[in-house]
Structures are given as C-alpha cells and as structure tokens.
C-alpha cells in the first residue's frame, strides 16, 4: 500500500503517512499540494518557457509582434515548420551591440557595490539591535519591518526631493556652509547607490539580526579575555557566525538590484545603463518583444547562481528550525 501511494505522482505524500497522522486523507492531501503546484506551474514556470521561445523568434509588425506564432490550427507539421523558423539572431544581436553588454556589466557592478555598502551599513544596525535589551527588541524589529510596508515607489520618490540640485540636502549643506555650490547628486550613480541601499536595507538587516541574535556572546568575551583585540575577535568569531545571515541578506539585495528598474529610472537619469531599464525600454519604447525576451533570458542566466545560493540558505534555515 505504502509502495503504491509513494509512486503515483505529485499528490502522494511520504510512505510514513500513518505516522504523520495528518489532516485529510486521500483527496484532501492531493489538493493541498496540487492546487498551488498547478498554479505556480501555469503562472510561473510556463511563462518562462514562453519567454525563452519568443527570444528565439523574429520581430514582426503584427499583433503579437513576433514570428512564428505557434497556433493550434497549424497541426503537427506546422509545429515543426514553425520550429525551424526559430533563430538565435536576437542573442547574436545582443553580442553585437555594445549597449547590452555594457548594461549587463554596469548592472552587475552597481548591484555588487550596493550590496557591499548595504552590508556595511546594515551590519552595525543589526548588531546594535541584537545587543539591545530584550524588552526593546520586538519594537526595534517592528521599526525595521515597517518601511517595507511603505510603497517602494514612494520611498524612491522621497529621495528625488532630497537629492535634486535645489533639494533639501543641498539646502542643508549650503545653510551649514559645507558647500557653496549645490552638488549634482540626482541623475548620477551615487543617487542609484543611495536609492538601492535605502530601499533594500531592511532585507539586509533582518537576516543579519536573526543570525546575530542567536549568537553566543560569551565566545567574544572569552576571546577578548585571552587577549584577542576586538577587531580580530569580530573577524574570527562574530562574522563567521553571522555568515548565513550575510549570505541570505546579500542575495536578497543583489538579485533584485540586478534587475532594478524604478531606482535607475527615477534617480539615475537618462545616462545610466542598467539591464532592467534596457529591458523596459526595449519592450515599451521599441516594442521589440523578441529582443526584450532575449535580454530577460540572459539576465536570468546571470542570476541562476545567486538564486540557487539563496534557496540553499533558505532550505538550510528551514531544516534547522524543524
């Protein structure tokens, strides 16, 4: 009995089912898995396959604007005929035009630099929170999560008013006499870094905090008692123990920052090259669906390793808390 249930598809659960004593047998069990499974297959996995297919198509002046369109009316032979029309032209085009290559490189650099800055800014905050009096910690945690509930767009928009030439930061700096000419920050890379660090800071602080909160501080004290200077105690003990949090936080910042559109568009101005913006322009301004699909496929390939790192850290955290 256990043998057969274990082998007939998605809906089956562990052979140790009686021990699980779980809810709902038979149908219930299957539906719990099957419904979300099918939903994600249709609305998450299949769309990626379609993106891949269209990235191999040719641009056409039609609706939808690509060729070939696989239709049911074509039949089997039509299907294979269409298959032969698929080309790698869009990918070749991406390598020929330096714009795309530069956009990928610049996205990687911007995402990596902002991840490092976010880590440097977030670590002291998370550390301070983890060492705060126990009674205060839930409030501090709540205060870190709260900005996450505020719209991303609004938070980026708020920085335009601060960073622009006649904005609040320049007014403040001129008033204090630090500078006498307004600084040009908006529409530069600096503005993008500020925007990414600001928007993604909670994503960095939360995993760091949960790693640091569990840490045993007597280890650091012991090291210091044995004559280890604080800085090397930090690198030898605190940082390695916080490493799972560092990895999770870094991936939570790096991956979305790579494909970021809103921040480079609103804070970076027209000069900045980032791949999320390129994809958007390719799609909405040039209406070139096959090329924007190819851009998306390459972006996804670049992100496969970081995404797998992230999933592993998630899975490990899940196993631990069992």
């Amino acid at each position, binding site marked *: 009995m256990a043998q057969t249930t274990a082998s007939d*598809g998605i809906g*089956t*659960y*562990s052979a140790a089912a009686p021990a699980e*004593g*779980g*809810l709902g047998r038979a149908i219930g*069990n299957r539906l719990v898995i099957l419904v*979300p*499974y099918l*939903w994600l297959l*249709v*609305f*998450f*996995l299949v*769309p990626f396959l*379609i*993106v891949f297919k*269209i990235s191999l198509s040719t641009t056409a002046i039609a609706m939808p604007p690509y060729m070939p369109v696989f239709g049911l009316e074509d039949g089997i032979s039509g299907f294979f005929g269409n298959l032969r029309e698929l080309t790698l032209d869009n990918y070749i085009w991406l390598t020929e035009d330096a714009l795309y290559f530069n956009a990928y490189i610049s996205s990687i650099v911007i995402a990596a630099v902002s991840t490092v800055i976010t880590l440097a800014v977030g670590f*002291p*905050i998370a550390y*301070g*929170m983890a*060492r*705060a*009096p126990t009674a205060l910690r839930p409030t501090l945690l709540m*205060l870190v999560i*709260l*900005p996450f509930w*505020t*719209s991303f*767009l*609004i*938070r980026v*928009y*708020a920085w335009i*008013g601060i960073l622009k030439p006649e904005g609040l930061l320049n007014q403040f700096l001129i008033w204090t006499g630090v500078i006498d000419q307004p600084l040009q920050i908006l529409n530069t890379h600096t503005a993008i870094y500020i925007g990414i660090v*600001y928007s993604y*800071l*909670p994503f960095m*602080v939360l995993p760091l905090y949960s790693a640091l909160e569990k840490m045993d501080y007597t280890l650091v004290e012991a090291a210091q008692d044995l004559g280890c200077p604080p800085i090397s105690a930090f690198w030898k003990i605190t940082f390695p123990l916080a490493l799972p949090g560092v990895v999770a936080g870094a*991936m*939570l910042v790096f*991956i979305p920052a790579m*494909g970021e*559109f*809103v921040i480079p568009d609103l804070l970076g101005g027209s000069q900045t090259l980032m791949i*999320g913006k390129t994809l*958007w322009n390719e*799609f909405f301004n040039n209406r070139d*669906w096959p090329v924007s*699909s190819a851009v*998306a496929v390459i*972006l*996804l390939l670049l992100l496969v390793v970081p*995404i797998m790192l992230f*999933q592993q850290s998630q899975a490990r955290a*899940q196993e631990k*808390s*069992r």
Partner: protein
Amino acid sequence: MNTTWSRFNIASVVLGFAFLYLPIVLLIIFSFNESKLVTVWAGFSTKWYGELFRNQGLIDAAWVTARVGFISASFATVLGTLAALALTRYTRFRGRVLFSGMVFAPLVMPEVITGLSLLLLFVAIGLDRGFLTVTLAHITFSMCFVAVVVQSRLITFDRSLEEAAMDLGAPPVRTFFAITLPVILPAIISGWMLAFTLSLDDLVIASFTSGPGATTLPMKIYSQVRLGVTPEINAACTLLIAVVAAGVLIASVVNKSREVQRQRDEQAAQRN
C-alpha cells in the same frame, strides 16, 4: 542573557533608523506645504489634499488598485496557505524540489522578468490585458510571500493538538478548521496584509500586465513623478502611507490582544 548595550550600538541603531525614516517624514511634512515648490517651505496648508480629491484620474486609479489588491490578496492567501501546508506537512512527494523552488524564486525574481513573462503568457493564451490579468499576476507573486509567512508559523506548530482532536474522532477537515486554522490565523492575517500591500505597491508587474482601463495607482503616480515632484503627489503618497500604517497598527493591536487573551486562558486552565 546579560547584554551590554554600548554607545556604539545605540548610535548605530539610532542613525540607522534616522536614515530609514527621515525621507518618509520629510515627504509627509512637505505634503502640507503651501507653496507649489516642494522643497521650499511657505506655510502650512491642506490644499493639495483638496486638489487630490478633485483629480478624477487619481481616484479611479485608487479604486482599481483597491479592488485588485483585495481580490488578489484573498486568492493569494488561500493559495499561499495551501503551499505552506504542502511544504511543511509533506516532506516527500514527487517534484517537491521544483515546488519549493517555484515558491522561493519569485521572492527574489527581478520584477521586470516576472512582468514580461506573465504578459507573454497572457498574449499566448489570448487573454486581453486588463483588470483580470493584473489580478492574476498579483496573485502569483504575492502567494509566495504568504507561503513563507504562514510556513514560518506552521514549523513551530504543535502537531499533538491535531492528533488529539483526531483521536477524539474529529474528521480531518473539521480538525483543520477547529484546531489548525485558529492557531495559524495571525500568520494568515499578516500574510493577507502583506499580499495586499505588495499589490498596492507594485508598479513594474502591473505596467506589463495591465491594459487600458485598468491603470493602478502606482502606475498613475509614476507617470506623474516622471514629469516632476509636486506637492499633490506628496499628498497622495502620504495618504497611501497612512492607510498602510493604520492597517499594520490595527493588525498588531489585534494580534497583541489575542496573545494576551490566550495567555490569560492558559493561566486559567492551569489554575483549574
């Protein structure tokens, strides 16, 4: 554990929170500015809020956003809760690795990719872009966030409660509604709220999957922001922040009072 909260620790926490909150506070302050210039203070005024309520385009967009958010959050909560149950209760089924991958990947997937891929799906199956497609897209990405929130509650759930109910003869479905659901309800509620805010905030995925007549509030705000910073947008943003803050506040108060009630019940039970 005795912790020493050093001056350095306090300073980094205070500065960190100042960095997180100052821009939002400034945005709210300048929504009450008399002047049309956003960054020059010219006295207190609520006139931009008045302007806001006369802006029919903005009101229509807010209405679309509220409906999309409500519907998508509700569906996402059901699907996300099922996904969380599947992930925590069934440790071995065929395709579990793929399944957990599909649950976790959307959390970090760049929005441009999700938006583009969903749009291409809708075109491929011949679904006209509009209210329905935005809602479907929002269900898909927010259900994964719900799944993560509910899953973290399910992991710490005491299964012996369910077993006790079943031993006493309660059928599985009834056990779920009588025992499991009340225990994980706070997580489900915060999952719903998270899904609703995510839908409320989303610009990129909505821009790809929306069509004529289904312009959401972020899309509307974005198109105005591109033309420049105006106090009217500040006012719209302030209202949006107020709505979300009120929701979060109410939810945390409700959760807290439920928690207090539960502790009181447990103490009463022990005394008997």
